[in-house]
């Protein structure tokens, strides 16, 4: 692996963090310890700097092939991975469901084994089924990066969220973080809960009773159905997307009522800490879970999250590739 100009910088920043990740895959936040999370966040600082240069490219992953395998529609995450891969000089190739063999009845494993026959190094996968990346990690050779699996995890989102929070608050431990919305179906929630618990934040979750998963309390958060209680004194308010189709599952009566009970408005946000930041993983439904005035307001860091996503994904790919090399040499 070619050293990048930021290497020394990374070494300076990492401090007590470990030098590498223990797993050769990134399947979830589950399995990462605090040191590894810190390592990824610190590495992303160096990666972020690359994005500020006029020539936004380093040769780190030159000659490596990364396949982005997206079985679910995604614009933001897929683009973000692609940009990250290109900035690291990887050869990349993106496959979306519509153009894959999946529609011809081929199994996920067969699809991936065929791709593996062309010797990629890493596979970034987004899939509607929880655990799909775990199946691949168990049955395939490549390094697997989870770009969102069903209702399970979306680890790079939680990492970029943490990176964004840390940039503003200089810490994660001890912060009051409110996460509001569809708690039942959200992989962003699960990854964030695991990460924020590991890093010592105090998380409040809020949503309608119909969208609170069974046993959520064992994942560590405080649970409320009152957005006012969740937002009260919060340092960070993270809104989750509400899918309007959920109305058909009797989860809530109407978008109008949802917004009136759970929508984030400027008025509600006044209960939060003075320097609160407002986050959203996107895609955002203005007027459903969040008022435009808040989404575009001074507290919003929503677009910053998107920028940081590239740095985080560069960091993850860089660390996994480095680990892979170390493994080969060992």
């Amino acid at each position, binding site marked *: 692996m070619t050293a990048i100009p930021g290497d020394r910088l990374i070494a300076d920043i990492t401090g007590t963090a470990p030098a590498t990740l223990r797993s050769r895959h990134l399947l979830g936040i589950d399995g990462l310890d605090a040191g590894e999370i810190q390592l990824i966040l610190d590495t992303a600082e160096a990666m972020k700097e690359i994005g500020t240069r006029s020539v936004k490219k380093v040769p780190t992953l030159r000659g490596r092939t990364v396949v982005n395998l997206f079985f679910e529609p995604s614009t933001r995450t897929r683009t973000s991975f692609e940009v990250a891969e290109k900035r690291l000089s990887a050869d990349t190739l993106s496959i979306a469901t519509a153009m894959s063999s999946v529609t011809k009845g081929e199994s996920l494993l067969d699809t991936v084994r065929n791709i593996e026959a062309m010797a990629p190094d890493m596979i970034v996968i987004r899939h509607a089924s929880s655990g799909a990346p775990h199946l691949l990690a168990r049955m395939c050779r490549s390094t697997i990066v989870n770009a969102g*699996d069903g*209702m399970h995890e979306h680890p790079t989102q939680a990492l970029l969220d943490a990176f964004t929070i840390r940039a503003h608050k200089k810490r994660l431990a001890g912060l009051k973080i409110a996460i509001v919305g569809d708690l039942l179906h959200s992989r962003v929630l699960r990854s964030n809960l695991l990460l924020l618990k590991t890093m010592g934040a105090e998380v409040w979750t809020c949503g309608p009773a119909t969208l609170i998963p069974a046993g959520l309390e064992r994942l560590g958060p405080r649970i409320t159905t009152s957005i006012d209680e969740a937002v009260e004194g919060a340092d960070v308010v993270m809104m989750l997307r509400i899918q309007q189709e959920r109305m058909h599952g009797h989860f809530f009566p109407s978008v109008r009522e949802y917004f009136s009970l759970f929508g984030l408005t400027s008025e509600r946000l006044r209960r939060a800490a003075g320097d609160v930041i407002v986050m959203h993983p996107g895609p955002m439904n203005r007027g459903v879970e969040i008022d435009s005035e808040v989404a575009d307001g001074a507290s919003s860091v929503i677009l910053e999250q998107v920028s940081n996503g590239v740095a985080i994904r560069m960091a993850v790919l860089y660390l996994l590739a480095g680990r892979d090399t170390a493994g080969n040499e060992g």
Partner: protein
Amino acid sequence: MSVTTRLIVKGGRVVDPATGTDGMFDVLIEDGVIRRVGKDLPVDGAEIYEVPRGAVVAPGLIDIHVHLREPGQEHKETVATGTASAVAGGFTAVACMPNTTPVNDHAGITQFILKKASEAGLARVYPIGAVSLGQKGDQLAELGEQKAAGCVAFTDDGHPVATALLMRRALEYAGMLGVPIIDHCEDPSLKGDGVAHEGYYASALGLRGIPGVAESLMVERDVSLAELTGAHVHIAHMSARQSIRAVRWGKDRGVRVTCEVAPHHFTLTDEALEAPIKYDTNLKMNPPLREAADRDAMLEGIIDGTVDLIATDHAPHHADEKMVEFDRAPFGIVGLETAVPIVFDRLVHTGKIGLSRMIALLSTNPAAVMHLAGGTLAEGSPGDITVLAPDMSVTVSAAALRSKSKNTPFDGWTFRGGVAATIVAGRIVYRA
């Protein structure tokens, strides 16, 4: 003139709950029928089976919840491979579920299954017919014709009997025929597209949940309808603690309700979904593995008698079908060859139940619930015997299973207790 065939099962501890027998006896089977149970029976030219030291001679075990998959799904199992699996697991008889392709809702299919069973010549096979045509829940199948062809009970297993009205009519009609209706209890709207027990583990793994109440709600319905009609309902594969409560309450007030529990539901919990293999599709079955309180309620029901019998819900699926994303995998695991080891290891050797209760759960009671011959060693009964080896060490190897499918979550597990031999109609069809 045909020659009399005679087999003496010699020198074992004979345990038969139906006759209250428990002692060292020989058993003579003549022309496929139990002729005598007694001390030192004269050999008189009979074939001898010497019972291994420490082994127990029991009436043949009967599994009333088996998917043999034939006709139509022979890539998963056939009557021949399924019955080979049965006898290797100590079962001398199985009752097979009607969700084949096509569904067993006509006498012709029942006859086909019986013909296949006869050709295989291993375990006895008792077909169970569909309650409704195509298991669609619209129109009653011809239960009378089906019974005449050999069906011993009716069920839409895989699905619940769809409406309360159909269930009521089926109970009344089957009651007239003197056979039970078996119900796979699950409220379809509460089940939704769930794939795992609704609880912490499903939530943490992002799997859609199925609450225990999806099952018990329909158990309560069925108990009420059995009470209304006076007919016999048998609840298949109970998994939820609320269901145990519902059956117990029904029995307390004299309703004709019986129920079964599968070995995995008193052994495993949903915690297994997380480790050692996350999203192992061999842990996906319907009803799902539930939480510890449910598992404990199954054990309690087995101990206190609420649970009438143990049945495996042997559900073979091809490896290709299981090697997919968790939510896309079919429900079900094989169970015939692991049931006896699990029952010994988890129930008998832990002191929860005695040997006699074990045999009642696996032989006497299944025969009684389904009105089958067998389940006893009384003279004149079918010459079906399972020789149990309480101290045999059994390490499960999925690859070595006789079943055509290998979808067991117990691969590599070691249990204390197994089967030394299986005898059907006086013929030794399996030896360990």
